[in-house]
C-alpha cells in the first residue's frame, strides 16, 4: 500500500478537507488545483474510499473551483489505483457534467472522454455506459447536452445490444425538446457517424442529419453543415448524390445568412468531401451564389475560400471553371461595398496567380491587384502587399515592379503605419530582384525617409532594412550611399533622429566591417557621448558595447575606454549603468 510508510497519518483527511472547504475561494481553488498532491498523500485506497465520496457529495462550489476539479479528475486514474479502479472517478464527474456552466460541463465531458479509454470493455458496459444513459435521460437540459459528447467514445467497444441502445439514445436527443440539446447533438453528429458501421450511417445518421438540417432554429441547422463534411467522407461516392446533396443544396440557399455563412466557411472541406464530379456540377454554382450573397458576412467568408476552392478544382477543367465562372465574381468583389469582403479577398487573391499562370495573371489578375492596392481601406492594401511574393514567382519582379512601383511608392507614405511597415518588410526582396541601379534610382530615398518617420516601429524596421540592404549590396555601396546620410543625422536637432544614427550603427557595423566602422562610425559615436540628452548618452554606451567586437584592441583601449569611463561617472543613473555594463562586457576594466 502506498501509504504504508506512515506519511499519510501526518495529513489526516480532515485537514485536507478543511482546506477544500476554506472560506476564501482562492484558497479553495489552490487546494483543488493540488488535488493530486492530496490524493498522493492519502494513498490510492483512501483516495477511493474517502476523498472521492467527499468530492462527490459535498462539493457545491463556485464554477471556477468546479472547473479545476473537473480538469483534475481527468488525470486521476493512477491516483485511484490504475485502470482497474478508474470507474471510481465516474460519480463526481457525472455530477459535474450536469452543472449549468458550460465551461465546467465541457471540461467534465472532456475528462470523461479521456478516462473512457482507460476503462476495460467490461467496465465500459458496467459503469460507463449506464452513466451515459442516465445523462441522456436527465431532466434538465444540461445533462442531456453532456451526454451528446460521450456516445462516440463508448460506442466502438461495447456489445451490439448496447450499441443499439446508444444509437437509440442519440436519436432521441437529436429531436430533443430544447434547442440547446439539439445543438449539442448536431455538433456531435459527425463525430458519432465516424464510429458507426456504414449500414447505420446510411439508415440512422442520414435521417437525423436531414432532420437537423431543416430544424426550425438556424443555430441547429448551421451545425448540421459541419456534420455534412464528416458524413460525406464516410459515404461511397455513388450514395452522395441521393443522401447528402439535397440537404447540402438546401443549406447553401438557406434563408438564414448564418447557415449560408457556415457553408461558405466550410466550403473547402465540403469540396474535398464530395469529390470532383459533384464539385463541378453543384458546388461551382453554389460558390458563385455565395460570392454574390446579399450579406457581406457570407461574401467575406466565401471570398476567403476563393484560392483554396480554385486550387482544389479538378485539374482538367480548372482553368476553364476559374476563367468563366469564378473570375467574373471575383472581379465584382474587388469593388464590393463592404471593406471586410474586399479585405478577405485581398488576403487570398494573389494566390490565384500560381494557379492561372503568367499570361492570365498579367491579363486578368494584375488589374485587380492594382485596383486593390489603391483601395481606400488600409487592410485591403496591406493584405495585397503582404502577399506580393506569390505573384512575384509567377510573373517575375520586373513585370511586377513596373506595374506596382507607383503604387508601392504611394503606399510607402501611407497614413497607416502598419501599411508602411508592410512595405518596408518587402523592400529587401524588391531590392535584391531589382538590382542596385534601379534601387538607387527609385527606392533609396524612400528607405532613408523612413529613418525619420514619426513612428518608432517604422524607424526600427527601416534600420533593420538598411542592414539587409547592406548584406545584399555590400560594404562599398553602404559607404557611398547610406552611411553619409546616416551619420549626418547625428547632428539633427531632434534627439530621436540622433538616436536613430546610433541604432543604424548598431545594425550596420558588422555588415560594414572593421575598417568602415573604425574610420567612419566610431568617431561619430564617440562625439555623441557629449550629447545633452541622457537617452542619447546611454545609447552611446550601448552602441559602443555593440560595435566593440568589430573594433581592434587598439581603438578599444585608446578611444572607447576613456569615453566609457567618462560616461560611467555621468550624473544620470541609466548612463552610468549602461557604461559600466559596456566596460565589463568589453573587458575594459
Amino acid at each position, binding site marked *: 500500500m502506498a501509504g504504508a510508510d506512515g506519511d499519510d497519518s501526518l495529513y489526516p483527511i480532515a485537514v485536507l478537507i478543511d482546506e477544500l472547504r476554506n472560506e476564501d475561494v482562492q484558497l479553495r481553488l489552490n487546494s483543488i488545483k493540488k488535488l493530486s498532491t492530496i490524493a*498522493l498523500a492519502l494513498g490510492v485506497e483512501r483516495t477511493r474510499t474517502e476523498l472521492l465520496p467527499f468530492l462527490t457529495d459535498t462539493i457545491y462550489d463556485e464554477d471556477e473551483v468546479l472547473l479545476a476539479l473537473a480538469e483534475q479528475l481527468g488525470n486521476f486514474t493512477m491516483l485511484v489505483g490504475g485502470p482497474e479502479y478508474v470507474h471510481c472517478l465516474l460519480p463526481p464527474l457525472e455530477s459535474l457534467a450536469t452543472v449549468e456552466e*458550460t465551461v465546467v460541463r465541457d471540461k467534465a465531458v472532456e475528462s470523461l472522454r479521456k478516462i473512457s479509454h482507460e476503462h476495460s470493455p467490461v467496465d465500459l458496459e458496467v459503469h460507463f455506459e449506464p452513466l451515459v444513459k442516465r445523462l441522456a435521460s436527465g431532466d434538465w437540459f444540461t445533462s442531456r447536452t453532456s451526454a451528446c459528447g460521450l456516445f462516440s467514445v463508448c460506442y466502438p467497444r461495447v456489445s451490439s445490444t448496447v450499441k443499439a441502445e446508444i444509437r437509440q439514445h442519440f436519436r432521441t436527443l437529436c429531436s430533443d425538446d430544447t434547442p440547446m440539446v439539439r445543438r449539442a447533438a448536431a455538433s456531435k453528429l459527425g463525430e458519432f457517424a465516424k464510429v458507426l458501421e456504414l449500414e447505420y450511417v446510411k439508415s440512422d445518421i442520414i435521417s437525423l442529419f436531414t432532420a437537423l438540417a431543416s430544424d*426550425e432554429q438556424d443555430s441547429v441547422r*448551421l*451545425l448540421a453543415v459541419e456534420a455534412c463534411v464528416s458524413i460525406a467522407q464516410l459515404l461511397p461516392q455513388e450514395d452522395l448524390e441521393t443522401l447528402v446533396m439535397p440537404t447540402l443544396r438546401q443549406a447553401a440557399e438557406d434563408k438564414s*445568412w448564418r447557415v449560408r455563412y457556415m457553408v461558405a466557411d466550410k466550403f473547402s472541406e465540403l469540396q474535398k468531401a464530395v469529390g470532383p464530379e459533384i464539385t463541378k456540377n453543384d458546388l461551382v454554382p453554389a460558390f458563385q451564389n455565395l460570392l454574390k450573397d446579399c*450579406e457581406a458576412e457570407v461574401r*467575406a467568408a466565401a471570398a476567403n475560400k476563393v484560392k483554396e476552392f480554385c486550387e482544389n478544382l479538378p485539374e482538367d477543367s480548372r482553368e476553364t471553371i476559374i476563367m468563366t465562372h469564378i473570375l467574373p465574381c471575383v472581379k465584382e468583389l474587388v469593388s464590393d461595398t463592404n471593406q471586410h469582403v474586399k479585405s478577405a479577398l485581398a488576403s487570398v487573391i494573389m494566390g490565384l496567380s500560381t494557379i492561372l499562370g503568367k499570361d492570365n495573371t498579367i491579363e486578368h489578375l494584375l488589374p485587380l491587384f492594382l485596383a486593390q492596392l489603391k483601395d481606400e481601406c488600409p487592410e485591403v492594401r*496591406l493584405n495585397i502587399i503582404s502577399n506580393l511574393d506569390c505573384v512575384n514567382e509567377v510573373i517575375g519582379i520586373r513585370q511586377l515592379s513596373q506595374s506596382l512601383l507607383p503604387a508601392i511608392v504611394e503606399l510607402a507614405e501611407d497614413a*497607416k503605419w502598419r501599411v508602411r511597415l508592410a512595405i518596408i518588410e518587402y523592400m529587401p526582396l524588391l531590392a535584391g530582384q531589382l538590382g542596385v541601379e534601379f534601387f538607387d534610382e527609385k527606392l533609396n530615398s524612400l528607405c532613408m525617409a523612413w529613418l525619420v518617420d514619426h513612428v518608432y516601429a517604422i524607424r526600427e524596421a527601416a534600420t533593420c532594412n538598411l542592414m539587409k540592404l547592406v548584406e545584399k549590396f555590400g560594404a562599398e555601396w553602404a559607404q557611398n550611399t547610406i552611411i553619409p546620410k546616416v551619420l549626418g543625422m547625428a547632428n539633427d536637432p531632434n534627439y530621436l533622429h540622433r538616436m536613430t544614427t546610433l541604432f543604424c550603427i548598431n545594425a550596420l557595423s558588422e555588415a560594414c566591417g572593421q575598417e568602415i566602422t573604425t574610420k567612419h562610425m566610431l568617431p561619430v559615436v564617440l562625439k555623441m557621448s557629449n550629447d545633452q540628452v541622457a537617452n542619447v548618452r546611454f545609447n552611446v554606451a550601448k552602441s559602443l558595447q555593440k560595435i566593440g567586437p568589430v573594433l581592434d584592441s587598439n581603438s578599444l583601449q585608446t578611444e572607447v575606454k576613456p569615453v566609457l569611463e567618462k560616461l560611467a561617472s555621468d550624473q544620470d543613473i541609466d548612463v552610468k549603468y549602461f557604461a559600466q555594463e559596456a566596460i565589463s562586457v568589453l573587458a575594459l576594466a
Partner: protein
Amino acid sequence: MSSAAATPPSVDKVDGFSRKSVRKAKQKRSQSSSQFRSQGKPIELAPLPLLKDVPTPEQPELFLQKLQQCCTVFDFMDTLSDLKMKEYKRSTLNELVDYVTVSRGYLTEQAYPEVVKMVSYNIFRTLPPSESNEFDPEEDEPTLEASWPHLQLVYEFFIRFLESQEFQPSIAKKYIDQKFVLQLLELFDSEDPRERDYLKTVLHRIYGKFLGLRAFIRKQINNIFLRFVYETEHFNGVAELLEILGSIINGFALPLKAEHKQFLVKVLIPLHTVRSLSLFHAQLAYCIVQFLEKDPTLTEPVIRGLLKFWPKTCSQKEVMFLGELEEILDVIEPTQFVKIQEPLFKQISRCVSSPHFQVAERALYYWNNEYIMSLIEENSSVILPIMFASLYRISKEHWNPAIVALVYNVLKAFMEMNSTLFDELTATYKSDRQREKKKEKEREELWKKLEDLELKRGLRSDGIIPT
C-alpha cells in the same frame, strides 16, 4: 458552441488605434433583411378603392384584397425603387389600421388567416448580421430597420387587431400558433429598439389572450435566456422579455409551481453573470423581487445564488448587485434574514473594504436604510463580529476620506447597538489578527510538507504522478 460560427472572424483589428473613432464617425446605419434585396423587376399593385367608399356588405371582401396586397414587401435599402408603390402600400396600411380600430363586423372567419399571413410576410425575416462584431449597446448606435415606415404600420395594425373587440382567440388560435410565436420571439433580437417595443406589446397581448400558448411562450423565453447566458451572450431583446415576464410573474398563482421556481433559480439568477447586465438589470431585479414578494421562502436560494455569482472584477456590476440586494432586503422577512445573514454579511464586509470607493460607498449606504438597520440591530451579535475587522481596518486605511467618514458612522452605530460586544471585539482585534497570521503560516507549512512528499514519492515511483 455556435457563437463562433455566428460571428465571422474580425478583420478590422489590424490597426488597434482606429476602431472606436472610425466607428463613431460613421453615420447612423440602417439595415434591412437579406431576403428583400436583389430582386429585379419593379412591383406593380393595382390601386383599390377606399374601404369607406364602398357599401358595407362589400367591405369584408375589399378588406381581404387589401390584406393580400400588403403581403408584398419592398426593398427599402434601395431608396429609389418603387417609390409610388411604397407610398401606396403605406397609405393602404394606414387605412387598414384605422379600419380595424373603428369598424364593426369586418372580422369574418376568412379574415383571420389573411391577417396573420400579411403580418407574417412583413415582420418575419432573418435579421441581418450586426454591423459591428462587438456591438456595444452602451457605446454604439443601434442599427435601425430600413423598412420601418411599413413595418411600424404592420405592427400597429396587428396590435389593433389583437385588441379589437371583435377579436376571437378561439378562431385566431388556429393561425397564431407555436410556430408563429417562435418566430415572433426570434424577432426580439432586432437591433431596432422601436421594433422591440412593438414586439413587447404584441407578445403581451398574445400571452394575455391565448391561454394555450402561455406555457410554450415561457419555455421558449427560457431557452432564449439559457442560450444567451451559456452560449452566445448576445440577444438584443432581453430587457423587453424580462419586462413582459415581470408582469407574468405578477400573475402567478400561489403556491408557485416547481417550474416557476426552477425558472427563478436556473435562469433568472444566472442572467446576472452576463457581461451586458447593465442593459437589463432594472427589469431583472424587478422580476426577482416579484418572485420574493410572492413567496418569501425563495429568499435564501436567491441570495445564495447572487453570492455565488458575485462579480469578482467588475466594479460596476458589483454596484448593481448591491443595489439589487438592497431591493431584496427591503422586502425580506426577518425569519428569512436570519437564515442568510452570515454569508450575506461576509460579502457585504468584503464590499465595504473594496478599494473601489463606489462599491464601498454603495455597501455602506445600507446603514442609511431604516429597515435594514432594524434587521442589523436585531442580529447585531452575529453581524458585528463579521463586519468588525473590515470596518476597523478601513477606518484606518482607506484612501477615500468620504468612505472613512461613512465607516465611522457605521462603527458608531454598532457601538450604540451593542457596546459590550463592540468593546470586546476592539480588545481582541490584535490577537485575532495574530491568530489569523499564525493559521496562514500553518497552512503554508502543510502544503510545503505535502509538496515535499509528492516530490519524494514522485522520484520513488518513477514518474507515476501526472503533472
